[in-house]
């Protein structure tokens, strides 16, 4: 299996970025090749989207998965999945049912060579707070995660704040349990400091400063390199990328920055998300120096 041994921040792509094209004009191999063109070595998939016959892919599909990773020098970095507690309209899943769903994903992520999962907890309000039984669900899955060598990481995304209650509750949980199998994925939307004129901004949102990430670094196993607008001279105009990447390098953080493009314009006819991703990777390549 392909290995990429570079230390420090490394480049990757979240295949979610291709959501407007996947299955229509691009298949999985097209996405891998696009990432390879960028010289990036990490990918994040969404299990429910990119795995054929999810959650029960055939052995043939899994063999093909590893062949694609080898051919395009790709490391399976992050397995995006959901704990779907609200999946039934009439009632919530019980803790046991949610744990069953989570353990099934842990096994499948391991089967595909992933070591980090972006574990999406079902939220209960606009502040994106997770279901009340999240500690029970995660605790029950920790032994299996440890056995398989996987870290489950909720994503911290705007309007959440790195200094907010939710993050401190996750960190408390990690410290109390002493687990190495639960951590964080920081989405760089939390650092967004510039908005377009007249653009709607969530009233709960307060931008984090790049240095706010420092105390959390020991718990961060992956980042979503969210970007909003790339200029034609390859700079991100809304998020202070040079400062963020420098902090990660100066503090010896080792992990993947997974590009994630979420702009609704990617659904416009003729839009090419590949071009947008490539522009961001020119910036990241320059900042990282790879």
């Amino acid at each position, binding site marked *: 299996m392909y290995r990429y041994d570079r230390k420090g921040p490394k480049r990757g792509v979240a295949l*979610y970025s291709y*959501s*407007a094209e*996947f*299955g*229509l004009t691009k298949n999985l191999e097209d996405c891998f090749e696009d990432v390879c063109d960028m010289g990036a070595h990490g990918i994040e998939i*969404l299990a*429910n*989207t990119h*795995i*054929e*016959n*999810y*959650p029960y892919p055939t052995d043939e599909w899994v063999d093909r998965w590893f062949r694609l990773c080898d051919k395009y020098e790709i490391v399976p970095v992050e397995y995006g999945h*959901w*704990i*779907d*507690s*609200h*999946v*039934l*309209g009439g009632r*919530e*899943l019980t803790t046991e049912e949610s744990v069953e769903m989570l353990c099934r994903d842990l096994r499948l992520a391991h089967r595909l060579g992933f070591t980090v999962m972006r574990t*999406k*907890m*079902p*939220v*209960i*309000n*606009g502040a994106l707070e997770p279901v009340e039984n999240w500690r029970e669900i995660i605790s029950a899955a920790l032994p299996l995660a440890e056995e398989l060598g996987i870290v489950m990481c909720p994503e911290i995304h705007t309007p959440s704040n790195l200094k907010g209650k939710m993050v401190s509750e996750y960190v408390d949980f990690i410290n109390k349990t002493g687990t190495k199998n639960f951590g964080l994925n920081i989405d760089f939307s939390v650092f967004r400091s510039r908005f377009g004129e007249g653009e709607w901004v969530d009233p709960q949102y307060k931008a984090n400063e790049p240095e706010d990430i420092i105390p959390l670094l020991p718990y961060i196993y992956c980042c979503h390199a969210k970007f909003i607008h790339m200029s034609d001279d390859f700079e991100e105009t809304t998020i202070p990328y040079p400062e963020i990447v420098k902090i990660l390098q100066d503090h010896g953080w080792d992990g993947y920055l997974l590009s994630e493009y979420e702009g*609704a314009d990617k*659904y416009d006819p003729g839009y090419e998300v590949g071009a947008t991703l490539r522009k961001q990777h020119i910036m990241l390549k320059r900042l990282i120096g790879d």
Partner: protein
Amino acid sequence: MEREVIQSVGFRNIKENGEITGFRFKVRLPYYRGVYLSQLRPGTLFVDGEKIEKENIVWCLGGEDYTNEEMAVDFRTHWTPTDLAVLKVKKPGGLSQGYHHLKYGYCFTSSYMPPMMQESLDPDKENFVILPEFGHHVNERTLIIV
């Protein structure tokens, strides 16, 4: 797979034991991730303006037929966006040769969002805010029966 939710391939009458009992067409899932069957909210179909209730439509996924009641409680069968669903519509005699206008509403829950967002979902009406990532609830297309 075509960009339109209602696909042109797969539109034909259903013949059972030499008799035409209805027709079928395929839809895609216009969402960035797959859904469990319990997340689906099937709505009403209009064919050339004639209303067909959802009770007369069976969803077929992965070769298996599901009634609305079966789908509502099935949170283990998953539909991936790269697969198409076949909708089988009961209509004795089927559809006549020529053009037909199909208008079909269906939607799905975003099961990780706050549950209160699920309650206002209506498959036959668009959401107040249309997000391209979630597609349209009501889709229309004119197709030909040969």
